[in-house]
Protein backbone atom coordinates (compact mmCIF):
# COMPACT_ATOMS: atom_id res chain seq x y z
CA UNK A 1 0.00 0.00 0.00
CA UNK A 2 1.43 3.34 -1.05
CA UNK A 3 1.74 6.32 1.26
CA UNK A 4 -0.86 9.02 0.91
CA UNK A 5 -0.50 12.69 1.60
CA UNK A 6 -2.85 14.23 4.14
CA UNK A 7 -4.33 16.08 1.14
CA UNK A 8 -5.25 12.88 -0.74
CA UNK A 9 -8.99 13.30 -0.22
CA UNK A 10 -8.85 16.93 -1.34
CA UNK A 11 -7.00 15.85 -4.51
CA UNK A 12 -9.63 13.20 -5.22
CA UNK A 13 -12.39 15.79 -4.86
CA UNK A 14 -10.51 18.07 -7.27
CA UNK A 15 -10.36 15.31 -9.91
CA UNK A 16 -6.70 14.37 -9.61
CA UNK A 17 -5.17 11.62 -11.65
CA UNK A 18 -2.66 9.98 -9.33
CA UNK A 19 0.79 8.62 -10.05
CA UNK A 20 3.04 6.38 -7.99
CA UNK A 21 5.93 8.64 -7.01
CA UNK A 22 8.50 6.62 -5.05
CA UNK A 23 5.82 4.81 -3.10
CA UNK A 24 3.50 7.80 -2.72
CA UNK A 25 0.20 8.27 -4.54
CA UNK A 26 0.58 11.88 -5.63
CA UNK A 27 -1.43 14.01 -8.09
CA UNK A 28 0.01 13.82 -11.62
CA UNK A 29 -2.52 16.32 -12.94
CA UNK A 30 -6.11 17.45 -12.41
CA UNK A 31 -7.17 17.19 -16.07
CA UNK A 32 -4.47 18.94 -18.11
CA UNK A 33 -0.85 19.40 -17.13
CA UNK A 34 -0.43 22.05 -19.83
CA UNK A 35 -3.30 24.16 -18.48
CA UNK A 36 -1.85 23.83 -14.97
CA UNK A 37 1.57 24.87 -16.28
CA UNK A 38 0.15 28.01 -17.94
CA UNK A 39 -1.82 28.78 -14.81
CA UNK A 40 1.37 28.88 -12.73
CA UNK A 41 3.25 30.98 -15.33
CA UNK A 42 0.41 33.48 -15.83
CA UNK A 43 -1.42 33.54 -12.50
CA UNK A 44 -0.75 31.10 -9.69
CA UNK A 45 -1.08 27.46 -8.76
CA UNK A 46 -0.52 25.22 -5.75
CA UNK A 47 1.28 21.93 -5.44
CA UNK A 48 1.14 19.33 -2.72
CA UNK A 49 4.75 18.33 -2.10
CA UNK A 50 4.17 16.69 1.26
CA UNK A 51 5.97 13.59 0.01
CA UNK A 52 9.27 15.42 0.42
CA UNK A 53 11.35 14.40 3.41
CA UNK A 54 11.68 16.91 6.25
CA UNK A 55 14.33 16.29 8.90
CA UNK A 56 14.84 18.59 11.89
CA UNK A 57 18.27 18.53 13.52
CA UNK A 58 19.13 19.92 16.93
CA UNK A 59 21.87 19.57 19.51
CA UNK A 60 24.97 21.41 20.69
CA UNK A 61 27.02 20.28 17.64
CA UNK A 62 24.39 20.98 15.03
CA UNK A 63 26.35 23.69 13.22
CA UNK A 64 29.59 21.71 13.21
CA UNK A 65 27.70 18.65 12.00
CA UNK A 66 26.02 20.45 9.11
CA UNK A 67 29.22 22.24 8.14
CA UNK A 68 30.75 18.78 7.72
CA UNK A 69 27.73 17.07 6.14
CA UNK A 70 26.88 19.69 3.50
CA UNK A 71 28.94 21.20 0.68
CA UNK A 72 27.37 24.61 1.20
CA UNK A 73 28.26 26.24 4.50
CA UNK A 74 25.57 26.85 7.13
CA UNK A 75 27.95 29.41 8.64
CA UNK A 76 26.34 31.74 6.08
CA UNK A 77 23.09 31.39 7.98
CA UNK A 78 22.89 34.08 10.62
CA UNK A 79 19.33 34.03 11.85
CA UNK A 80 16.32 31.69 12.02
CA UNK A 81 14.39 31.42 8.78
CA UNK A 82 17.35 31.82 6.46
CA UNK A 83 17.79 29.02 3.97
CA UNK A 84 20.52 27.67 1.71
CA UNK A 85 20.44 25.32 -1.24
CA UNK A 86 23.11 22.65 -0.85
CA UNK A 87 24.36 19.32 -2.08
CA UNK A 88 25.13 16.49 0.29
CA UNK A 89 28.14 14.69 -1.19
CA UNK A 90 29.75 11.30 -0.82
CA UNK A 91 33.49 10.65 -0.47
CA UNK A 92 33.89 10.46 -4.23
CA UNK A 93 32.35 13.90 -4.61
CA UNK A 94 29.10 12.53 -6.05
CA UNK A 95 25.74 13.94 -5.03
CA UNK A 96 23.86 11.92 -2.39
CA UNK A 97 21.01 14.43 -2.56
CA UNK A 98 20.26 18.10 -3.08
CA UNK A 99 18.30 19.92 -0.43
CA UNK A 100 17.38 23.16 1.27
CA UNK A 101 18.60 23.74 4.81
CA UNK A 102 16.86 26.33 7.02
CA UNK A 103 17.70 27.61 10.46
CA UNK A 104 14.78 27.02 12.83
CA UNK A 105 14.16 29.05 15.97
CA UNK A 106 15.95 26.04 17.52
CA UNK A 107 18.23 23.94 15.34
CA UNK A 108 17.99 23.39 11.61
CA UNK A 109 15.60 21.85 9.10
CA UNK A 110 16.54 19.94 5.96
CA UNK A 111 14.03 19.50 3.13
CA UNK A 112 15.16 16.54 1.02
CA UNK A 113 13.91 14.63 -1.98
CA UNK A 114 11.23 12.01 -1.45
CA UNK A 115 12.83 9.28 -3.56
CA UNK A 116 16.08 9.53 -1.59
CA UNK A 117 14.55 10.11 1.85
CA UNK A 118 15.39 6.75 3.44
CA UNK A 119 18.89 6.69 1.97
CA UNK A 120 19.49 10.26 3.16
CA UNK A 121 18.39 9.49 6.72
CA UNK A 122 20.69 6.47 6.91
CA UNK A 123 23.51 8.59 5.51
CA UNK A 124 22.89 11.44 7.93
CA UNK A 125 22.66 9.11 10.91
CA UNK A 126 25.92 7.47 9.96
CA UNK A 127 27.71 10.81 9.80
CA UNK A 128 26.07 11.95 13.04
CA UNK A 129 28.38 9.59 14.96
CA UNK A 130 30.65 11.67 17.12
CA UNK A 131 28.44 14.78 17.00
CA UNK A 132 26.02 15.84 19.74
CA UNK A 133 22.97 15.99 17.47
CA UNK A 134 19.50 14.53 17.27
CA UNK A 135 17.74 13.90 13.97
CA UNK A 136 13.98 13.85 13.78
CA UNK A 137 12.01 13.03 10.66
CA UNK A 138 8.92 15.24 10.58
CA UNK A 139 6.19 12.98 9.19
CA UNK A 140 3.71 15.24 10.93
CA UNK A 141 4.30 18.10 8.48
CA UNK A 142 2.84 18.81 5.05
CA UNK A 143 4.30 21.08 2.36
CA UNK A 144 2.23 23.21 0.01
CA UNK A 145 3.98 25.21 -2.73
CA UNK A 146 2.09 28.28 -3.98
CA UNK A 147 3.78 29.51 -7.16
CA UNK A 148 3.19 32.13 -9.83
CA UNK A 149 3.15 35.90 -10.37
CA UNK A 150 0.02 36.18 -8.19
CA UNK A 151 1.20 33.70 -5.55
CA UNK A 152 2.12 36.20 -2.86
CA UNK A 153 -0.99 38.33 -3.39
CA UNK A 154 -3.30 35.31 -3.26
CA UNK A 155 -1.57 33.76 -0.26
CA UNK A 156 -1.81 37.07 1.57
CA UNK A 157 -5.60 37.00 1.36
CA UNK A 158 -5.51 33.80 3.40
CA UNK A 159 -2.75 34.24 5.98
CA UNK A 160 -3.76 37.46 7.69
CA UNK A 161 -2.13 40.88 7.73
CA UNK A 162 0.75 40.46 10.12
CA UNK A 163 2.24 37.36 8.52
CA UNK A 164 1.28 38.70 5.08
CA UNK A 165 3.53 41.72 5.52
CA UNK A 166 6.39 39.50 6.61
CA UNK A 167 5.89 37.26 3.56
CA UNK A 168 5.99 40.23 1.19
CA UNK A 169 9.24 41.41 2.77
CA UNK A 170 10.92 37.99 2.50
CA UNK A 171 13.95 37.63 0.29
CA UNK A 172 14.41 34.52 -1.86
CA UNK A 173 15.45 31.48 0.20
CA UNK A 174 14.35 33.17 3.42
CA UNK A 175 11.43 32.06 5.51
CA UNK A 176 9.33 33.24 8.38
CA UNK A 177 7.56 31.33 11.15
CA UNK A 178 3.96 32.14 11.95
CA UNK A 179 4.17 30.76 15.47
CA UNK A 180 6.79 31.02 18.15
CA UNK A 181 7.73 27.41 17.41
CA UNK A 182 8.66 25.97 14.01
CA UNK A 183 5.16 25.00 12.85
CA UNK A 184 3.82 27.03 9.94
CA UNK A 185 6.97 28.02 8.08
CA UNK A 186 6.53 30.28 5.03
CA UNK A 187 9.57 30.13 2.72
CA UNK A 188 10.14 32.32 -0.34
CA UNK A 189 11.32 29.36 -2.40
CA UNK A 190 10.05 27.24 -5.23
CA UNK A 191 10.83 24.99 -8.16
CA UNK A 192 9.06 26.72 -11.02
CA UNK A 193 11.02 29.83 -11.99
CA UNK A 194 8.21 32.02 -10.63
CA UNK A 195 7.82 33.94 -7.42
CA UNK A 196 6.10 32.07 -4.64
CA UNK A 197 6.12 30.28 -1.34
CA UNK A 198 6.70 26.84 0.02
CA UNK A 199 4.65 26.49 3.16
CA UNK A 200 5.56 23.83 5.70
CA UNK A 201 2.66 23.28 8.06
CA UNK A 202 1.12 20.69 10.38
CA UNK A 203 -0.52 17.88 8.38
CA UNK A 204 -3.60 18.16 10.57
CA UNK A 205 -4.19 21.72 9.33
CA UNK A 206 -3.15 21.24 5.71
CA UNK A 207 -6.49 20.29 4.17
CA UNK A 208 -8.34 23.31 5.59
CA UNK A 209 -5.51 25.57 4.37
CA UNK A 210 -5.56 23.94 0.90
CA UNK A 211 -9.27 24.69 0.54
CA UNK A 212 -8.76 28.25 1.78
CA UNK A 213 -6.16 28.77 -0.94
CA UNK A 214 -8.54 27.21 -3.45
CA UNK A 215 -11.28 29.61 -2.39
CA UNK A 216 -8.78 32.47 -2.79
CA UNK A 217 -8.44 31.53 -6.47
CA UNK A 218 -5.36 29.31 -6.36
CA UNK A 219 -5.74 26.32 -8.72
CA UNK A 220 -4.21 22.94 -7.97
CA UNK A 221 -1.35 21.76 -10.17
CA UNK A 222 0.17 18.29 -10.30
CA UNK A 223 3.65 16.85 -10.43
CA UNK A 224 3.56 16.72 -14.25
CA UNK A 225 3.28 20.52 -14.44
CA UNK A 226 5.86 20.85 -11.68
CA UNK A 227 8.31 18.95 -13.89
CA UNK A 228 7.78 21.05 -17.04
CA UNK A 229 7.98 24.23 -14.94
CA UNK A 230 11.28 23.26 -13.30
CA UNK A 231 12.68 22.17 -16.65
CA UNK A 232 11.77 25.51 -18.27
CA UNK A 233 13.45 27.19 -15.30
CA UNK A 234 16.56 25.07 -15.97
CA UNK A 235 16.50 23.55 -12.47
CA UNK A 236 18.08 20.19 -11.75
CA UNK A 237 16.13 17.12 -10.70
CA UNK A 238 17.92 14.58 -8.55
CA UNK A 239 18.39 11.28 -10.40
CA UNK A 240 18.40 13.11 -13.73
CA UNK A 241 20.95 15.94 -13.76
CA UNK A 242 22.91 14.55 -10.82
CA UNK A 243 23.29 11.45 -8.74
CA UNK A 244 25.92 9.68 -6.66
CA UNK A 245 28.24 9.35 -9.67
CA UNK A 246 27.98 13.00 -10.74
CA UNK A 247 30.01 15.80 -9.23
CA UNK A 248 28.21 19.07 -8.48
CA UNK A 249 30.75 20.65 -10.86
CA UNK A 250 29.16 18.64 -13.68
CA UNK A 251 25.67 19.82 -12.76
CA UNK A 252 26.14 23.62 -12.66
CA UNK A 253 26.20 23.45 -8.88
CA UNK A 254 29.70 24.84 -8.30
CA UNK A 255 28.05 27.96 -6.84
CA UNK A 256 26.56 25.85 -4.04
CA UNK A 257 29.96 24.76 -2.73
CA UNK A 258 31.46 27.16 -0.23
CA UNK A 259 35.25 27.28 -0.14
CA UNK A 260 35.46 30.54 1.87
CA UNK A 261 36.63 28.83 5.05
CA UNK A 262 39.71 26.93 3.91
CA UNK A 263 39.85 25.13 7.26
CA UNK A 264 36.38 23.66 6.87
CA UNK A 265 36.41 20.00 5.92
CA UNK A 266 33.22 18.59 4.46
CA UNK A 267 32.28 15.22 3.04
CA UNK A 268 33.47 15.04 -0.57
CA UNK A 269 35.75 18.06 -0.30
CA UNK A 270 38.99 16.47 -1.49
CA UNK A 271 37.27 14.63 -4.34
CA UNK A 272 35.59 17.82 -5.59
CA UNK A 273 38.87 19.74 -5.29
CA UNK A 274 40.61 17.08 -7.36
CA UNK A 275 37.84 17.20 -9.97
CA UNK A 276 38.07 20.98 -10.06
CA UNK A 277 41.84 20.88 -10.60
CA UNK A 278 41.51 18.23 -13.32
CA UNK A 279 39.11 20.48 -15.24
CA UNK A 280 35.75 19.58 -16.74
CA UNK A 281 35.22 16.71 -19.21
CA UNK A 282 31.60 17.56 -19.81
CA UNK A 283 29.02 20.23 -19.13
CA UNK A 284 25.31 20.51 -18.49
CA UNK A 285 23.50 22.51 -21.17
CA UNK A 286 20.02 23.48 -22.25
CA UNK A 287 18.68 22.03 -25.52
CA UNK A 288 16.13 23.58 -27.90
CA UNK A 289 14.31 21.54 -30.55
CA UNK A 290 12.08 23.85 -32.55
CA UNK A 291 11.00 21.17 -35.03
CA UNK A 292 8.28 18.63 -34.32
CA UNK A 293 9.08 15.98 -31.74
CA UNK A 294 9.79 15.78 -28.04
CA UNK A 295 13.24 15.22 -26.53
CA UNK A 296 13.27 12.37 -24.00
CA UNK A 297 15.55 11.32 -21.16
CA UNK A 298 18.34 9.03 -22.28
CA UNK A 299 18.50 10.08 -25.93
CA UNK A 300 22.03 10.36 -27.36
CA UNK A 301 23.44 13.78 -28.28
CA UNK A 302 25.95 13.87 -31.16
CA UNK A 303 28.59 16.62 -31.27
CA UNK A 304 30.37 17.16 -34.57
CA UNK A 305 34.00 16.06 -34.50
CA UNK A 306 33.60 14.43 -31.12
CA UNK A 307 33.53 10.70 -30.51
CA UNK A 308 32.11 10.96 -27.05
CA UNK A 309 28.31 11.16 -26.99
CA UNK A 310 26.20 13.40 -24.83
CA UNK A 311 22.93 12.37 -23.22
CA UNK A 312 19.59 14.03 -22.54
CA UNK A 313 19.15 14.05 -18.75
CA UNK A 314 15.64 15.56 -18.75
CA UNK A 315 13.58 16.07 -21.89
CA UNK A 316 10.03 17.28 -22.30
CA UNK A 317 7.77 19.77 -24.04
CA UNK A 318 7.83 23.42 -23.04
CA UNK A 319 4.24 24.70 -22.87
CA UNK A 320 5.49 28.31 -22.65
CA UNK A 321 7.72 28.09 -25.74
CA UNK A 322 5.53 25.65 -27.68
CA UNK A 323 8.32 23.23 -28.56
CA UNK A 324 10.56 20.69 -26.91
CA UNK A 325 13.39 21.54 -24.52
CA UNK A 326 15.82 19.47 -22.51
CA UNK A 327 18.81 19.46 -20.25
CA UNK A 328 21.75 17.42 -21.50
CA UNK A 329 25.22 16.46 -20.37
CA UNK A 330 27.57 16.89 -23.35
CA UNK A 331 31.32 16.83 -23.96
CA UNK A 332 32.92 20.08 -22.87
CA UNK A 333 33.94 21.04 -26.42
CA UNK A 334 30.32 21.09 -27.67
CA UNK A 335 29.36 24.32 -29.43
CA UNK A 336 25.99 25.82 -30.27
CA UNK A 337 24.66 23.01 -32.47
CA UNK A 338 24.26 19.28 -32.02
CA UNK A 339 22.11 16.39 -33.18
CA UNK A 340 19.86 14.20 -31.09
CA UNK A 341 18.82 10.66 -31.97
CA UNK A 342 15.05 10.95 -31.87
CA UNK A 343 12.50 8.19 -32.32
CA UNK A 344 12.88 7.90 -36.07
CA UNK A 345 15.72 10.16 -37.14
CA UNK A 346 18.37 12.55 -35.96
CA UNK A 347 17.28 16.15 -35.46
CA UNK A 348 19.39 19.29 -35.21
CA UNK A 349 19.16 21.04 -31.85
CA UNK A 350 20.58 24.23 -30.43
CA UNK A 351 22.56 24.17 -27.18
CA UNK A 352 22.25 27.07 -24.72
CA UNK A 353 23.02 27.81 -21.10
CA UNK A 354 20.55 25.84 -18.95
CA UNK A 355 17.49 27.98 -18.25
CA UNK A 356 14.67 28.72 -20.68
CA UNK A 357 11.89 30.63 -18.96
CA UNK A 358 11.81 32.83 -15.86
CA UNK A 359 8.90 34.93 -14.64
CA UNK A 360 6.87 33.97 -17.67
CA UNK A 361 9.44 35.09 -20.27
CA UNK A 362 12.09 33.31 -22.37
CA UNK A 363 15.55 34.10 -21.00
CA UNK A 364 17.83 32.88 -23.79
CA UNK A 365 19.07 34.76 -26.85
CA UNK A 366 16.58 34.54 -29.73
CA UNK A 367 16.79 31.62 -32.05
CA UNK A 368 18.78 32.29 -35.20
CA UNK A 369 18.98 30.11 -38.29
CA UNK A 370 21.78 27.58 -38.24
CA UNK A 371 24.62 28.93 -40.43
Amino acid at each position, binding site marked *: MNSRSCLYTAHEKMGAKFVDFSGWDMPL*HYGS*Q*IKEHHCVRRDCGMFDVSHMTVVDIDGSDVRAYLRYLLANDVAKIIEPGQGLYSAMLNDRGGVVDDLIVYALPRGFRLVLNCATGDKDLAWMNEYAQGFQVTLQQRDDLAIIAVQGPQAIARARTVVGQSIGEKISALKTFNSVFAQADDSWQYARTGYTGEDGLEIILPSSEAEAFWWQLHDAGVSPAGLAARD*TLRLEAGLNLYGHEMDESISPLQANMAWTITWADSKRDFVGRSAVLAARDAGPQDKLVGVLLTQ*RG*VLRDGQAVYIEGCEQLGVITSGS*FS*PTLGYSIALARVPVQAGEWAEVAMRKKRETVRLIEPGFVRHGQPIFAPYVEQP
Partner: protein
Amino acid sequence: MSDTPKELKYALTHEWTLDEGDGVVSVGITDYAQESLGDVVYIELPEVGDKISAADEAGAVESVKAASDIFAPVSGEVIAINEDLEDAPETINDSPYGDGWFFKLKMSDPSELKHLLSADEYIESVEEE
Protein backbone atom coordinates in the same frame (compact mmCIF):
# COMPACT_ATOMS: atom_id res chain seq x y z
CA MET B 1 -13.41 3.65 -16.61
CA SER B 2 -12.93 5.67 -19.76
CA ASP B 3 -15.65 6.20 -22.33
CA THR B 4 -15.95 3.35 -24.88
CA PRO B 5 -18.91 3.82 -27.26
CA LYS B 6 -20.75 0.63 -28.23
CA GLU B 7 -21.16 1.57 -31.90
CA LEU B 8 -17.41 1.59 -32.59
CA LYS B 9 -14.94 -1.21 -33.28
CA TYR B 10 -11.57 -1.26 -31.56
CA ALA B 11 -8.00 -2.46 -32.06
CA LEU B 12 -5.76 -3.80 -29.30
CA THR B 13 -3.40 -0.93 -30.16
CA HIS B 14 -6.08 1.55 -28.94
CA GLU B 15 -7.50 2.85 -32.23
CA TRP B 16 -11.24 3.07 -32.78
CA THR B 17 -12.99 2.57 -36.14
CA LEU B 18 -16.38 3.94 -37.15
CA ASP B 19 -18.13 2.36 -40.12
CA GLU B 20 -19.43 5.33 -42.10
CA GLY B 21 -21.00 3.22 -44.88
CA ASP B 22 -19.97 2.88 -48.54
CA GLY B 23 -16.83 1.04 -47.45
CA VAL B 24 -15.44 4.07 -45.59
CA VAL B 25 -14.26 4.08 -41.98
CA SER B 26 -12.98 6.90 -39.82
CA VAL B 27 -10.20 6.18 -37.33
CA GLY B 28 -9.01 7.80 -34.11
CA ILE B 29 -7.58 6.86 -30.72
CA THR B 30 -9.65 5.80 -27.75
CA ASP B 31 -10.49 7.78 -24.65
CA TYR B 32 -8.36 5.33 -22.68
CA ALA B 33 -5.40 6.02 -25.01
CA GLN B 34 -5.67 9.81 -24.79
CA GLU B 35 -6.04 9.61 -21.02
CA SER B 36 -2.93 7.43 -20.71
CA LEU B 37 -0.91 9.71 -22.97
CA GLY B 38 -2.00 12.94 -21.32
CA ASP B 39 -1.76 16.29 -23.10
CA VAL B 40 -1.05 15.68 -26.80
CA VAL B 41 1.38 18.18 -28.36
CA TYR B 42 2.27 16.76 -31.78
CA ILE B 43 0.49 14.60 -34.29
CA GLU B 44 1.70 12.83 -37.44
CA LEU B 45 -0.93 11.89 -39.98
CA PRO B 46 -0.73 9.82 -43.18
CA GLU B 47 -1.22 11.55 -46.53
CA VAL B 48 -4.37 11.41 -48.60
CA GLY B 49 -3.81 8.74 -51.23
CA ASP B 50 -1.58 6.57 -49.01
CA LYS B 51 -2.41 2.88 -49.26
CA ILE B 52 -2.06 1.22 -45.88
CA SER B 53 -2.37 -2.39 -44.77
CA ALA B 54 -4.06 -3.40 -41.55
CA ALA B 55 -1.67 -3.13 -38.57
CA ASP B 56 0.74 -0.92 -40.52
CA GLU B 57 1.93 2.33 -39.02
CA ALA B 58 -0.36 5.15 -40.13
CA GLY B 59 0.90 8.03 -37.99
CA ALA B 60 1.99 8.95 -34.52
CA VAL B 61 0.83 10.93 -31.55
CA GLU B 62 3.18 12.55 -29.06
CA SER B 63 2.22 13.92 -25.67
CA VAL B 64 4.27 15.80 -23.11
CA LYS B 65 4.84 12.42 -21.49
CA ALA B 66 5.24 9.85 -24.29
CA ALA B 67 5.10 9.06 -27.99
CA SER B 68 2.96 6.39 -29.56
CA ASP B 69 2.50 5.09 -33.10
CA ILE B 70 -0.93 4.90 -34.67
CA PHE B 71 -1.74 1.72 -36.63
CA ALA B 72 -4.32 1.21 -39.35
CA PRO B 73 -7.11 -1.00 -37.95
CA VAL B 74 -8.03 -2.17 -41.48
CA SER B 75 -6.46 -2.02 -44.95
CA GLY B 76 -7.36 0.70 -47.42
CA GLU B 77 -6.60 4.03 -49.01
CA VAL B 78 -6.50 7.26 -47.03
CA ILE B 79 -9.24 9.52 -48.44
CA ALA B 80 -9.26 12.25 -45.77
CA ILE B 81 -7.12 13.46 -42.87
CA ASN B 82 -8.06 15.73 -39.99
CA GLU B 83 -5.72 18.64 -40.67
CA ASP B 84 -7.20 20.68 -37.81
CA LEU B 85 -5.30 18.44 -35.40
CA GLU B 86 -1.96 19.88 -36.54
CA ASP B 87 -2.75 23.25 -34.96
CA ALA B 88 -4.97 21.96 -32.19
CA PRO B 89 -3.63 18.57 -31.04
CA GLU B 90 -5.43 19.07 -27.71
CA THR B 91 -8.65 18.23 -29.61
CA ILE B 92 -7.60 14.59 -29.24
CA ASN B 93 -7.80 14.97 -25.46
CA ASP B 94 -11.01 16.97 -25.53
CA SER B 95 -12.94 14.90 -28.07
CA PRO B 96 -11.27 11.57 -28.89
CA TYR B 97 -14.36 10.13 -30.63
CA GLY B 98 -15.58 13.34 -32.26
CA ASP B 99 -13.45 16.25 -33.53
CA GLY B 100 -10.33 14.28 -32.59
CA TRP B 101 -10.65 11.75 -35.47
CA PHE B 102 -7.39 11.13 -37.36
CA PHE B 103 -8.15 9.91 -40.89
CA LYS B 104 -10.68 8.14 -43.12
CA LEU B 105 -9.96 4.99 -45.07
CA LYS B 106 -11.68 3.52 -48.12
CA MET B 107 -11.43 -0.14 -47.16
CA SER B 108 -9.91 -2.59 -49.61
CA ASP B 109 -11.36 -5.55 -47.70
CA PRO B 110 -14.39 -4.65 -45.57
CA SER B 111 -14.44 -8.18 -44.13
CA GLU B 112 -11.44 -7.14 -42.00
CA LEU B 113 -13.85 -5.20 -39.78
CA LYS B 114 -14.96 -8.54 -38.34
CA HIS B 115 -11.52 -9.01 -36.78
CA LEU B 116 -11.77 -5.86 -34.68
CA LEU B 117 -12.92 -5.85 -31.06
CA SER B 118 -16.32 -4.87 -29.75
CA ALA B 119 -16.50 -2.24 -27.01
CA ASP B 120 -16.80 -4.95 -24.35
CA GLU B 121 -13.86 -6.91 -25.73
CA TYR B 122 -11.76 -3.75 -25.84
CA ILE B 123 -12.63 -2.85 -22.24
CA GLU B 124 -11.62 -6.36 -21.22
CA SER B 125 -8.27 -6.04 -23.04
CA VAL B 126 -7.57 -2.70 -21.35
CA GLU B 127 -8.38 -4.08 -17.93
CA GLU B 128 -5.83 -6.84 -18.49
CA GLU B 129 -3.06 -4.34 -19.27
